[in-house]
């Protein structure tokens, strides 16, 4: 018996939706196995990892708080990936958004009024956009590979942020902790649900989802972006302005990631600290792929990713396992997705005793020729 992959001839729509679900199931099976190896009951561990985070309203609110920035970043990334622009820099753009937003907040520390928070958020958006403008500029005018430039910018932005909290932005009355001063009420996100940390910023993810959907599905620019990503030569022959599209994709993504960063410092954190993101920008890459680069898919995938973050915290508290479990699940999820995606273009065919058939056909052939020869 031999198992073979056979080209379908055309892409299977069904499989493109089934593949993320299959990947999630495989991840869970492997995760259960991992817990079992570690000497925990798989059922109990999976319950702690997946069900406990959504077992009461406070935790669900917490899940949404985590999903917000992930979804914002993933929405932006999906536009870039559609255009075949491999922006890995959402993390750095998020950090820059948080940093520039914090600078604005600290400059306006004594100001009061409803306008303060929007100013801080816009500063964050601009910070993220400026950071994303660097790889866009380098790609457009120097042909610099955006994967490497955005990765390097992630490390650079983290160090600039650390410089900020250890140096000029450090709270003078903060006992020398690497933290900025606490933001005032005018500078922090209003809480949407009393008793939880669910804040206004989470709703931005929904607005972003609608915005990205309209852009990609209803406008000519969205069409141009998809053509550019699908076949660069076609976009060129159609006369689309490729450079302008690259600018646009990266700036939108930078803006959304910057907003996510500003939303974190003005939302659940309330000040600038060294670790404003537990890798949300990297997780967003997985989310974008898992959500099939579609806004609605990204929303669901973002919730799943937030669940993985929450689950990591839960197993740390209740089962005494390291928080890094989240990272293992993230990696498995993306790998399984890539593996399952083969089913979109190929079907699995099982040949029963294939080698025998080959032999038979060979043994029949020669006599037929011999007869003809006579």
């Amino acid at each position, binding site marked *: 018996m031999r198992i073979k992959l056979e080209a379908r001839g055309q892409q299977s729509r069904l499989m493109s939706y089934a593949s993320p679900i299959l990947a999630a199931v495989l991840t869970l099976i492997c995760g259960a196995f991992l817990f079992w190896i570690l000497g925990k009951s798989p059922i109990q561990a999976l319950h702690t990892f997946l069900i406990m985070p959504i077992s009461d309203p406070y935790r669900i609110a917490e899940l949404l708080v985590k999903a917000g920035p992930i979804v914002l970043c993933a929405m932006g990334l999906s536009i870039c990936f559609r255009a075949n622009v491999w922006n890995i820099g959402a993390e750095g753009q998020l950090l820059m958004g948080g940093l520039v937003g914090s600078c604005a907040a600290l400059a306006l520390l004594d100001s009061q009024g409803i306008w303060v928070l929007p100013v801080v958020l816009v500063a964050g958006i601009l910070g993220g956009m400026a950071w994303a403008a660097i790889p866009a500029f380098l790609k457009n005018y120097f*042909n*610099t590979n955006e994967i*490497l*430039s955005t990765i*390097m910018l992630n490390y650079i932005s983290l160090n600039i942020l650390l410089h900020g909290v250890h140096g000029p932005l450090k709270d003078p009355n903060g006992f020398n902790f690497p933290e900025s001063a606490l933001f005032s009420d005018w500078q922090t996100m209003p809480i949407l649900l009393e008793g939880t940390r669910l804040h206004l910023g989470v709703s931005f993810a929904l607005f972003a989802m609608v915005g990205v959907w309209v852009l990609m599905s209803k406008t000519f620019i969205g069409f141009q972006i998809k053509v550019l990503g699908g076949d660069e030569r076609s976009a060129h022959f159609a006369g689309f302005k490729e450079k302008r599209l690259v600018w646009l994709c990266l700036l939108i993504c930078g803006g959304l990631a910057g907003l996510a960063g500003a939303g974190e410092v003005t939302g659940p954190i309330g000040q600038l600290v060294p670790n404003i993101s537990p890798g949300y920008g990297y997780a967003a890459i997985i989310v974008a792929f898992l959500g099939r680069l579609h806004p609605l898919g990204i929303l669901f995938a973002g919730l799943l990713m937030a669940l993985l973050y929450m689950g990591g915290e839960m197993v740390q508290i209740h089962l005494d396992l390291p928080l*890094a479990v989240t*990272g293992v699940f993230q990696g498995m999820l993306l*790998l399984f997705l890539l*593996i399952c*995606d083969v089913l979109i273009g190929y079907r699995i065919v099982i040949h029963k005793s294939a080698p025998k058939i080959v032999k038979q056909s060979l043994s029949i052939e020669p006599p037929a020729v011999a007869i003809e020869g006579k």
Partner: protein
Amino acid sequence: MDIDFIANILFATIRMGTPLLIVAIGELVCEKSGVLNLGQEGMMLMGAVAGFMIAFHTDSLFIGFMGSVVAGALMALLFAVVTMHFYANQVATGLALTILGVGLSGFMGRSYVGEALTNVDFQIPLLSSIPFFGKVLFSHDVLVYISIGLAGAVYWFFKSTRAGLVVKAVGESPESAQSLGLSVLKVRYLAIVFGGAMAGLAGGYLSLIDTPLWAENMTAGRGWIALALVVFASWRVERAVFGAYLFGFMSIMHLVLQSFGLSVSSNLLATLPYVATVVVLVLLSRNQQRIKLFAPMSLGKSFHGAH
């Protein structure tokens, strides 16, 4: 500025450049066969954590290094299976490998954070006591010399052996190579696993000799810098050696600058190697023709010829 200071700088340059050199050599071989593996960071981290854990329990650096190599190679094997049998995009799979490596290494090494190995000093007798040159050239750990030997071996491999020619042929045109009866899959498997083993070894260098301890994400982007290094070297071994030490120098620039009395924040100085990488990439990729000329033709493309 005295001569001891220069000797120290050169010593540190070679030491910092060594892990970069090891990864870059591995990735160079891998890319020569037409495979772009962006998972260097993940493979390095797995090599670092596996090496540390094993060395910690066996008290043997050698067995630790074996563990590093095997861990890196296993990660690379995973990459090879996913990209070659499931036709997954090499860029995405490399990213996945990095994300998995970061998570898995952090998970495995959790209880080893804060532990330290008793450092094993290795010095060449006599030669290392020569003034200046002794310090710069002969007082390193054994991995430094192994890495240079490896670079020489890979140079010779591509320049003078038939197998080297086969790897290059597969990287330039897998279809032609297959029609000549060469096994594209076999060649690429070997190249990918070699790349992983080297990345693992470099990770082990960091956790077993350089620091020597385990910390989450301790590679700090060196895997990515090595990827840029291969582009910088235009896929040539001798330039990769030069580039690795150049980048090694960049990562100790802050020590140099501080010694000149420059008081810049250490966090800002820590960005120097990354900034340098971007600058080098920009300078090199301005001329797209040049990259096209040197890069293996099939780099990054899935090969669907063999089932």
